[in-house]
């Protein structure tokens, strides 16, 4: 059952509050405001009593389906649980109540967190320099590629016009290249689902600015030739950028700088447990080599003896966010990293183990297009004749949020499953049992699903063709 909008509840004139009588003379709005600032008609607000408001929003919240209520194996999404200790750290009044324009002397603690967060991300990636400024992964990508662009401008090299992107890449990669003023070219895959090194060798030339690689890639496969790939690019004077969206499969096990990467972005909300979903706020911190460090966005935190301050890197591309980035987000990441320390490696191992357990147990019933050891997520295909969409809808009736479907685009009927590091074997066994059961269900039965959700299947095509975003 769908709820009515709150505006359609209640009746005209009903109120949930009483304002005191005016004890001053009422002003005539037309006399004190310019005509163009006055509304032509009254806003259509809900006219409801307080219990109706509470019931309306409480009932809506009970339909919320997320990690706090159910297992949520959405792929290309990474870790989902928000440890409550992070929230406690972020709620400390000294952090929660500060203003971004307070003088440095009053916010030394916050600047210390920024400095230490930079330092920790530097240690984890192996890079000497970090910026916490980008507010999301895609902005981290753009920041990185703008730094590459500025590097070539600074070097007087005007020939670098192309950014290479593998066919498995996130859609934001070619979009980033275009936004930064480069053309993008796509590279195909080898039979393991990795970047085709021979194709890359043939494509790289003096016009190549960078390759944008995701590692592990969106099929959940580790790019085994990453060092060779870095070598090919460096020989041509180009950079290797790594999309760190899947960094939670590397932390403690692989440092991108040591694999030959020049610049990368992290998603703190995907790798260090800061809240995500619903579009933010996020943090797309970047880490880079000495060659690119002078081009980092303004500002970065620096330590001068016992004093912390914000400085502008020498050849900075400028600001990419207002004030100092999403402080509340990198504060949570700092807390998470400090809390786990070297045990972060075990979180990585658990995420990888869980994905491989799902892969091993679904094999034989589901098709596994890249059936080697996967990293933190696994791509499967339903048995022949069944659609990923139908299996996904069937999962809803069993109390699961469906995995990502129809991505990555290179796999037909793809279901991208990412169990994450926080789930127990019992939870995984229940989920796998349901997946196996759904594979045995008839296509006709599956096409009926979901039957237990507030709505049956929505007409996605009509919603996209006749977009109605207001009423």
């Amino acid at each position: 059952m769908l709820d009515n909008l709150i505006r359609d509840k209640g009746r005209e004139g009903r109120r949930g509050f009483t304002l005191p009588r005016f004890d001053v003379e009422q002003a005539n709005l037309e006399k004190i405001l310019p005509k163009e600032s006055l509304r032509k008609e009254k806003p259509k607000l809900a006219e409801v009593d307080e219990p109706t408001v509470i019931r309306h929003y409480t009932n809506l919240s009970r339909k919320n389906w997320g990690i706090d209520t159910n297992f949520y194996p959405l792929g290309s999404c990474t870790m989902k649980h928000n440890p409550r200790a992070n929230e406690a750290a972020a709620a400390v009044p000294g952090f929660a109540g500060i203003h971004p324009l307070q003088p440095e002397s009053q916010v030394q603690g916050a600047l210390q967190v920024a400095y230490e967060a930079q330092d920790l991300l530097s240690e984890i990636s192996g890079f000497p320099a970090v910026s916490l400024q980008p507010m999301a992964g895609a902005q981290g990508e753009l920041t990185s590629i703008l730094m590459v662009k500025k590097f070539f401008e600074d070097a007087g090299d005007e020939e670098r016009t192309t950014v290479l992107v593998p066919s498995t890449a996130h859609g934001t990669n070619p979009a980033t290249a275009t936004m930064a003023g480069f053309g993008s070219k796509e590279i195909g895959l080898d039979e393991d689902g990795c970047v085709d090194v021979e194709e890359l060798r043939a494509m790289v030339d003096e016009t190549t600015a960078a390759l944008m690689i995701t590692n592990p890639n969106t099929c959940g496969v580790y790019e085994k030739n990453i060092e060779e790939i870095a070598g090919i690019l460096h020989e041509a004077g180009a950079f290797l950028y790594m999309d760190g969206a899947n960094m939670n499969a590397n932390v403690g096990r692989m440092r991108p700088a040591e694999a030959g990467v020049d610049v990368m972005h992290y998603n703190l909300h995907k790798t260090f447990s800061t809240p995500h979903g619903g579009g933010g706020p996020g943090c797309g911190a970047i880490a880079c080599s000495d060659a690119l460090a002078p081009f980092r966005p303004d500002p970065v935190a620096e330590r001068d003896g016992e004093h912390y301050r914000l400085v502008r890197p020498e050849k900075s591309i400028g600001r990419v966010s207002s004030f100092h980035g999403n402080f509340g987000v990198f504060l949570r990441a700092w807390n998470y990293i400090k809390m786990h320390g070297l045990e972060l490696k075990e979180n990585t191992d658990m995420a990888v183990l869980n994905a491989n357990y799902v892969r091993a147990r679904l094999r034989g019933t589901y098709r596994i297009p890249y059936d080697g050891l996967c990293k933190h997520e696994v791509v499967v295909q339903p048995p022949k004749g069944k659609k990923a969409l139908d299996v996904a809808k069937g999962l809803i009736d069993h109390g699961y949020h469906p995995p990502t479907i129809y991505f990555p685009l290179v796999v037909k009927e793809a279901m991208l499953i990412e169990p994450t590091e926080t789930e127990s074997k019992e939870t995984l066994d229940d989920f796998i049992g349901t997946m196996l059961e759904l594979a045995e269900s008839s296509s006709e039965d599956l096409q009926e699903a979901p039957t237990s959700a507030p709505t049956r299947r929505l007409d996605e095509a009509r919603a996209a063709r006749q977009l109605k975003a207001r009423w």
Partner: protein
Amino acid sequence: MAIPEELQYTKTHEWVRREDDVATVGITEHAQDELGDVVFIELPEKGASFGVGDAFGTVESVKAVSDLYAPVGGEIVEVNEALNDAPEKINEEPYGDGWIIRLRVSEETDLLSAGEYEKVLEEEE
């Protein structure tokens, strides 16, 4: 899946109908089935020219966005403007009202027969 005998095909799932030097191009029934419900199509301008294999437009479905590749080269003499308002025609009648462009052919390459295209589909499975 229907694969009409009188048409020619590409490995990228476009079909071609030749009438003298004009070629009508669309996507196959298999292609529309793989894509799912089409919600938007980006069509080229009349008068634009494309070489064999060039991307001449994009088709967006609820699942994915895909490029459309020219099976023959030439100048666009007509585009199916009706698809702007009714992209679902590509799903409903891929070989009929769902046609996409007409080209005056100036460059050709070997295309697949219906039988050969059927084999391509079998291999993909």
